[in-house]
C-alpha cells in the first residue's frame, strides 16, 4: 500500500509543497482503502459525508475522532492477519482505545520510530535507564500505551535498567549500579514525563543527585496535563533534569497510540516537529476546514495507518502551529507546541452517566 521509497527519503527534508502533494494523494488513497475494507468506516463516509467528499484540499478530508477507537473495533484487515492489538491506558471510567495492527503496519511503525529517534540520538545503542517499573511491560499481547512506548524505545538501548520498583518508588540500588557502570558513557534515559518528574526527579534530594555523562540524552513523552496541574513548564522541567542528573540534552515527544511510531520529536529549539511520516493540522470545530497555522484542536495525518482507519484523526489536544519549513533547527515541515487538552464536556440531562 505505502510506497516503500518513502523510507529512503530524508525524514525532515520535504518542504510544504512536496509534502502536501504526497499527503493529498496518500491520504485520499487511504480513505478509499479503509472505506473498501472497513464497513463501519464506510458507513461514516456514506452517511456523514454523503455530499461533501471533497478531495481537493487535504484540510477538508473526512476525519474521525480518536475516541471512536474506544467505542468501536475498527480494522481494515482480515482478522487472520491481525498481528498486534494495542490498547491505550484507560482510566477507570474510561474505556481504552484499541488499535489493530497487521505485520506491515506494525513493521512500518517501528521503522519510522527508529528513523526519527536515531536522527536525534545516533544509531548506536546506548546504555538505557528506564524511569518506570519493569512490571509496566507485563503482557506483550496487549500493550498499554506506557508499556508499548517503553518497549518501542528499548530498541535504542542496551543493558536496559529499570529505575523504579513495582510501586514506582526509586530503586536506588539499581540506579547506583547503573551510574557506577556508565558514568563516563553517553546514556539514554527514557520515561513518561510525569513519572519522570514525580517519581524520579522530585524524589532525588541533594544527597542523591547523579551526574551522568554530558552527552547523555533524556527522552520523555506522555502528556503535560498533570505537569500543568503541578505548574511545571518544559523549561522548569529541563532545569530540574540538569540540576538533578546533569543532563542538558532533553527531548520531549508527542505521540498517540492511534498513530504509534510517527511521533513528533522536540528539536533543540523546543518545538515539536512533523517528520515526513506524519502531519498536523488544527481546527476550531468539527465543521470548518482544518488550518495549517495557528492554534486549535489537533488533527493528525499518517500515511502509515493501513490496517486500521487511523490515517486522519481528530484528537482532543490543543496545539499551536508555530511555522512551516523555517524552524531555526533546520528541519523542514510543520513545527508546533502542545498547549493542553480540551476539558471534558459537562452535559446537562436526566441520566447521570455518559
Amino acid at each position, binding site marked *: 500500500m505505502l510506497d516503500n521509497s518513502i523510507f529512503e527519503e530524508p525524514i525532515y527534508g520535504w518542504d510544504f509543497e512536496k509534502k502536501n502533494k504526497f499527503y493529498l494523494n496518500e491520504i485520499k488513497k487511504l480513505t478509499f482503502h479503509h472505506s473498501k475494507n472497513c464497513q*463501519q*468506516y464506510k*458507513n*461514516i463516509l*456514506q*452517511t*456523514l459525508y*454523503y455530499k461533501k467528499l471533497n478531495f481537493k484540499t487535504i484540510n477538508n478530508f473526512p476525519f*474521525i*475522532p480518536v*475516541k*471512536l477507537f474506544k*467505542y*468501536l473495533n475498527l480494522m481494515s484487515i482480515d482478522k487472520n492477519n491481525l498481528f498486534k492489538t494495542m490498547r491505550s491506558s484507560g482510566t477507570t471510567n474510561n474505556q481504552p482505545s484499541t488499535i489493530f495492527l497487521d505485520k506491515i503496519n506494525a513493521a512500518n511503525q517501528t521503522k519510522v520510530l527508529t528513523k526519527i529517534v536515531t536522527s536525534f540520538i545516533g544509531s548506536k545503542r546506548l546504555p538505557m535507564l528506564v524511569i518506570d517499573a519493569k512490571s509496566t511491560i507485563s503482557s506483550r499481547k496487549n500493550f498499554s500505551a506506557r508499556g508499548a512506548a517503553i518497549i518501542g524505545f528499548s530498541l535504542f538501548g542496551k543493558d536496559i535498567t529499570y529505575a523504579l520498583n513495582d510501586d514506582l518508588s526509586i530503586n536506588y540500588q539499581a540506579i547506583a549500579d547503573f551510574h557506577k557502570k556508565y558514568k563516563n558513557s553517553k546514556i539514554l534515559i527514557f520515561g513518561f514525563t510525569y513519572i519522570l518528574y514525580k517519581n524520579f526527579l522530585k524524589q532525588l534530594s541533594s544527597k542523591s543527585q547523579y551526574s551522568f555523562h554530558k552527552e547523555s540524552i533524556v527522552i520523555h513523552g506522555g502528556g503535560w496535563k498533570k505537569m500543568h496541574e503541578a505548574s511545571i513548564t518544559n523549561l522548569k522541567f529541563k532545569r530540574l533534569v540538569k540540576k538533578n542528573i546533569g543532563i542538558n540534552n532533553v527531548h520531549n515527544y508527542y505521540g498517540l497510540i492511534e498513530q504509534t511510531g510517527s511521533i513528533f520529536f522536540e528539536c533543540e529549539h523546543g518545538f515539536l516537529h512533523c517528520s515526513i511520516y506524519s502531519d498536523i493540522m488544527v481546527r*476550531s*470545530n*468539527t*465543521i470548518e476546514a482544518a488550518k495549517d497555522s495557528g492554534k486549535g*484542536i489537533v488533527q493528525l495525518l499518517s500515511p502509515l495507518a493501513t490496517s486500521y482507519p487511523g490515517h486522519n484523526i*481528530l484528537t*482532543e489536544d490543543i496545539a499551536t502551529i508555530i511555522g512551516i519549513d523555517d524552524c531555526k533547527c533546520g528541519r523542514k515541515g510543520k513545527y508546533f507546541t502542545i498547549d493542553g487538552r*480540551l*476539558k*471534558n*464536556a*459537562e*452535559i*446537562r*440531562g*436526566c*441520566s*447521570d*452517566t455518559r
Partner: protein
Amino acid sequence: MIHDKQHKINFLLNKKYLCVTNEVFDEKICSFISELSKSILKIKETRLYPDLVSFAYWCRSSNLNKYRTKYKDNNLRIGLGTIFHITASNVPTNFAYSFVFGLISGNSNIIRISSNKNNQADIFFKVIKNLFKKSEYQELKKSNIFIQYDHNKDITQYYSSFCDARIIWGGDNTINEIRNFKLKEKARDITFPDKYSLSILDGKNILKLKENELNNLINSFYNDTYFMDQNACSSPQLIIWLNDNKDIAKKVFWNKLKIFLYKYDIDEASDIEKYTNLCKLVATNNNISKVKIENKKLSIIKISKLDQNIFDIRGFYGSFVEYNANNVQDITLLSSNIVQTLTYFGIDRNEILNIISKHKLKGFDRVVPIGKALEMDMVWDGYELPYALSRIISLN
C-alpha cells in the same frame, strides 16, 4: 454505624433529623411551599435561571391550589414517613421538585443532591435557610434534610435501611446501583429510568403558520430541547413528520430553528463529543440513511424505517432523528415502556389519545404540546406522585 461516617456527609442545612408525617396537601405545608416560591421569585438572580423561575411558578400558591383541588379528595391520605431522594446531578432543579413531591405528599425528606456546582441550588438554599429561621417552620426544618456525599455504599445503605420510600432519579445506571441497597419490607422504590421521547408534527399545519406563530413554535421547540442539551429524558430524540413528503415544512422549521440557535453555545469538547456520537451511530446502525450536519449546533439524522431499534439512536446537543410517517397510527410501532413524552404540533390530541387507548400502547407516559416537554407535573412517568408517596386509609 453511620456515626463514624458522618464526617463524609455534608449537611446543607440541618443535621438532626426527625420524621414527621402529614396529610396530603396539608395546609401549612402548602403555605410553606408557596412562601418558598414567593421568596425565590423575589431574589434578583433567580431571573438568570429560567428553570428556577419555572420551578417557583410551578409551586406558587395558585398552582398548588389547583393541584390541591385535584388530589385532596374525601379520603384520608397520609404521607408514608421518610422519603430518601437520590436526585439527578445534571438537572439543576431536579432536587427541588423531588423535595416538593415528597413534602406535599405529607412526608419528611432526606434529599441527596450532587456536589456539582449548581447556582440554582445556591439560590434555593439561601431562601430556605431564611425560611427555616421562622418559628412556624421549626418542625419542617428538622424533618427535611439536604445532604451531599461522594459515592459511598455505607451512607446510601444507611438511609435506604430506614426510609419508607426511595425516589431514584438519574437513569438506569444509578437505579441499578442504588437497588443493591435493601429497603425495609414495606418500603417502596419510585424510579425514573432512562427514557426516550419524541415529537410529532404536521407539516401542512406548519406551513399555515403566520410568522409570529412559527416563531412561538420554534421557541417552544428550542426550550424543549436545547435548554437541556437535548439530553433530558423528555426532550425529543425523534421527530415524526406528517404531511410533508416533499420536505417543504421541514425546511421552514429547521431553517427557522437555526436562527434561534444563535443563543445556544457548543464548546469544543461538546462539539467533538457530538461528532463522535454521530460517527458511532452511523458506523453501526444500518437504519440511518444519511446525516445532514447543518452546522455544529444542528444535525438531522434520516432513517429509513420506524422500528424499536430507533431507541438506540440517541443524540444530544441538537442531533435529531427524522422520519416521514404516513399517519399518526405509525406511533404504534414504538409501543414500549421506554417511551416517555410525546410532544405534538398541528395534530388533534384526541387522535393521539385514541390510538394509545385503542392499542393499549406501552409507554407514552406524557402527551403534551410542543413547549411543555420539560414542564414537571405531579404526574410523572405514570406515577401520580402525591398518591405514590402516601397511603390511603380505608374506611369501608
